[in-house]
């Protein structure tokens, strides 16, 4: 199973014992997954099982140089889809993509890395 990484993350984030949920208090920062891919087309799904009041998340993918002390989609190394207003982000620019998502939604992510 793909889990949240224990080392490849902003140190101030709190990762649950089963490594399937993460909580941040001070400002937005990032955690990457336990697995990575190098090329080809990949698809994964994330089910939103809980969204406490006032919480928000940005899911997507990041190369290893993505800044961990900023939200996913902050720099040129990562792309994200935000729970609030369903905006998609890359290099901190937000573009409309879908309605916001919330508890119970299942998000699908597909990306293709050409062999080059």
């Amino acid at each position: 199973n793909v889990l949240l990484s224990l080392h490849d993350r902003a140190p101030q984030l709190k990762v649950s014992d089963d490594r399937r949920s993460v909580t941040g208090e001070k400002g937005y920062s990032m955690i990457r997954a336990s697995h990575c891919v190098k090329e080809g087309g990949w698809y994964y799904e994330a089910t939103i099982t809980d969204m406490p009041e006032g919480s928000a998340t940005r899911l997507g993918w990041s190369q290893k140089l993505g800044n961990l002390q900023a939200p996913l989609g902050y720099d040129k190394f990562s792309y994200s889809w935000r729970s609030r207003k369903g905006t998609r982000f890359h290099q901190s620019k937000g573009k409309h993509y879908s309605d916001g998502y919330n508890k119970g939604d299942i998000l699908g992510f597909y990306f293709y890395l050409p062999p080059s």
Partner: protein
Amino acid sequence: DLPMAMRFRQLRQLTRDSVGVFRSTIHGRGLYCKRDFDGGEMIMEYTGQIIRRELTDKREKYYESKSIGCYMFRMDDYFVVDATVLGSGARFINHSCEPNCYSRIVQFEGKKHIVIFALRRILRGEELTYDYKFPIEDDSHKIACHCGARLCRKFMN
């Protein structure tokens, strides 16, 4: 010679009675002392908004776009104190090539504080200065310094 934490506890009250603000030709305001300070004495805390280091670039650019002088002070590897909009008078301590103050990070009740200390004995009426570089880079905004000190940095900002 009290322990640092006790000295810090009294600092807030002490500062009110011992540091004043005057109109400075360098940056509009400067601080001077209303009584003598012994070398090593705590003078005041440099307070402001505690922000994550990652936010400083964006804020500097914003202040620059509004041509507001940016006053920030690094607290540690993660946090910076931004005293530009919300801050203590310590942000008015002007630069000097021969400063009479220096700063230290003091830990108190689990929180870090930037505290300004007297580098040497400072007599009543003297301006408080410390050695830090102003953020202004382009020479057109520079104010020349003629202090003649050995380590003169040629500019007051």
